[in-house]
C-alpha cells in the first residue's frame, strides 16, 4: 500500500512547452482518482512523472513516502517495481507471445538478464503469468503473437502484464481509448475490480465523461498544464466537466493565449 504525494510539480520540455504548471495533490493509499483534461493538457506527462519516465523540472513526487524525483539506479528500479503503468498506446513487444509479454511484468523482480524469458522463467512465474492472463480472460490466447491480437485483447494483455508486476499503485493512461464501448467497459471493470481486491492506489486518465462518472470517486482535471478541478466526483457538476473541453482549441495551441477563460476552480 502506497500513497502518492505530488508537490507542485512543473514540467517544461526542452523545446519550451510548459506541459505542467505547479500541479499538486495527494492521493491516499488504496484510493482512486480519475484524471481529466483536453488533448495536450498534460495528463500523460503527469502520469509519466509519477513513474519517473519523465522528470519534473520543479517540485517533487513522493510515492509511499519515498522521493521518486531524486531516485536513481537501483533505488529507482525498486520503486518502479511497485508502480504499474498501463499506457495510452499499447506497448507490447509485437513479435512475442501474449504469455511472454506478461512474463516481462516480473522483470523488475529479477536480477539476471534471462529470468523472464519464457524458456528460463521459474515455474511459479509461469504459473502466475497464466493466472494473470486468466484474470483478464486471455488465457486461451496465451501463445498468440501480441501483434496479431485485437486492440482490446492487447490492452487486456497489457493489464495482465501490470498484474504480473504486483504493484501497489496503478497509473492508467486512457486505457480504453483504443477500444470499442463494450471492450472498454470490460477493461474498466477489470481494472477497478483488481485494484479494489488488491487495495491498489489508482490514477486513471479518461476522455469519456460518462465512463468517468461511473468509475470516478474523485476527479482531478487539468487545463493547459494547470490543475483546475480536484474534488470528490459528487461535487463536480457536468457543466464543470464540459467546460474543461470548451476551450480546448485555444488551449492546445497556446496555453498563454489572452482571453482564455478557465473553468471555475472547484476544490474540496
Amino acid at each position, binding site marked *: 500500500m502506497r500513497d502518492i504525494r505530488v508537490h507542485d510539480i512543473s514540467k517544461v520540455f526542452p523545446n519550451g512547452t510548459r506541459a505542467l504548471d505547479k500541479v499538486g495533490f495527494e492521493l491516499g493509499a488504496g484510493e482512486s482518482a480519475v484524471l481529466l483534461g483536453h488533448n495536450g493538457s498534460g495528463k500523460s506527462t503527469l502520469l509519466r512523472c509519477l513513474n519517473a*519516465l519523465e522528470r519534473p523540472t520543479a517540485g517533487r513526487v513522493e510515492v509511499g513516502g519515498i522521493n521518486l524525483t531524486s531516485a536513481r539506479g537501483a533505488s529507482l528500479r525498486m*520503486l*518502479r517495481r*511497485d508502480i504499474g*503503468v498501463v499506457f495510452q498506446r499499447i*506497448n507490447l513487444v*509485437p*513479435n512475442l507471445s501474449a504469455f511472454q509479454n506478461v512474463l516481462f511484468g516480473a522483470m523488475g523482480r529479477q536480477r539476471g538478464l534471462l529470468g523472464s524469458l519464457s524458456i528460463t522463467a521459474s515455474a511459479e512465474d509461469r504459473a502466475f503469468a497464466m493466472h494473470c492472463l486468466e484474470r483478464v480472460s486471455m488465457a486461451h490466447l496465451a501463445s498468440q503473437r501480441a501483434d496479431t491480437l485485437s486492440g482490446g485483447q492487447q490492452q487486456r494483455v497489457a493489464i495482465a502484464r501490470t498484474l504480473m508486476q504486483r504493484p501497489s499503485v496503478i497509473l492508467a493512461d486512457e486505457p480504453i481509448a483504443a477500444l470499442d464501448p463494450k471492450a472498454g467497459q470490460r477493461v474498466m471493470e477489470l481494472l477497478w475490480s483488481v485494484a479494489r481486491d488488491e487495495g491498489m492506489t489508482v490514477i486513471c486518465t479518461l476522455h469519456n465523461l460518462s465512463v468517468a462518472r461511473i468509475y470516478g470517486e474523485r476527479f482531478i482535471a487539468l487545463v493547459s498544464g494547470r490543475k483546475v478541478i480536484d474534488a470528490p466526483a459528487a461535487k463536480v457538476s457536468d457543466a464543470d466537466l464540459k467546460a474543461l473541453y470548451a476551450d480546448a482549441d485555444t488551449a492546445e495551441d497556446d496555453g498563454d493565449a489572452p482571453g482564455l477563460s478557465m473553468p471555475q476552480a472547484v476544490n474540496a
Partner: protein
Amino acid sequence: MRPAFPCHKPSTLEKPAMNQPSQYRDMPTRVATPSIFTWLILVIFLALFIQGLSGAGFTPDRLLRGAGNLGSFFAQAMPPDFSRIGPIAKAMYETFQMALVGVTFGVILSLPMALLCARNTSPAAPVRVVCRGTVATLRTIPDLVWALIFVVAVGLGPLAGILAIIMDTIGFCARFFSERVEEIRPGPSEALASTGAGRMQVITGAVLPEAFPSFVATSLFAVEKAVRSAVVLGLVGAGGIGVELNTAMTMFRYDQALTIIMIILVVVIGVEQLSSAIRRRVL
C-alpha cells in the same frame, strides 16, 4: 512576390475566394529553382565525368580490340578443363568456409557494437561517437585492403581472409543493426523500464526480439557479400579459390580458369537463392 496570374483582375468581392491565388504569399513555385550549390555540384560532376572518360582511353578502337581479345580468351578457354575439379572444388569449399566463419564472428562482434552505436541503447554519448567512428572506419577500408594488411600480419592463407571478412562484416552489420535498433518504437522499451527493468533487461526483452528478424536478414546479406569477397581475397593470397584462379590466369590456363569461374557462379547464385529463401521465412 511575383504575380502568379498577371492577367487576373483583382476581385472586388468581400469574401476571399478560391479565385484569388495571389493571397497565398508562400505558395511554392511549380519547380523549385536550383540553388547555386546544385549548379556547382552539377558542373563538378560533368567535369570529372568527361575527364574520367578521356583518361580511361575510352575509344571505339580500343573497345573493339578488347572485344577481340575477349573472343580469343573464350576460344582458348573452350572447352573448360575439368581435370582439376577435385582441388578446385576443395578450394571453393574453403572459400565458403572462410566466408561463413568470418561472418559468424563478425555478426557476434557486431551485436554489442551496434548496441553501443544506437542512440536508444548506447550508455553515453562519447561511447556512441567512438563506436560509430570505429564502425565507419572499418566500413571505409575495402576488404581487399584488409586482406593485404592481414596477409602481412598473419601470413598467406585463409586466416588472413577470415580476419578481413570479420572486419568487413562488422563495418556492414554493426551499421545496419544499429540503424534497425534506432528505428524501434520506444513504447515497449519504456513499458519494461516502467516495471523496474534495468537497461540490459530492456535490451534483451524489448529491443533484440523486435530487431531479430532484421538482424537475420542483414546477416544473410553479409554471408552473400562475404562469399563474393572471399573469392576475390584469394587474389592477394588470403586463401580460397581466388588463389587457384590467379594461378590459372597467370599460367594462361584459360580452360581451367573458366571451370573456376563457372564454379564460383554456381556457388554464389546458390548462396543467394538459399539466403533469400531463409529471409522470406524469417520476415
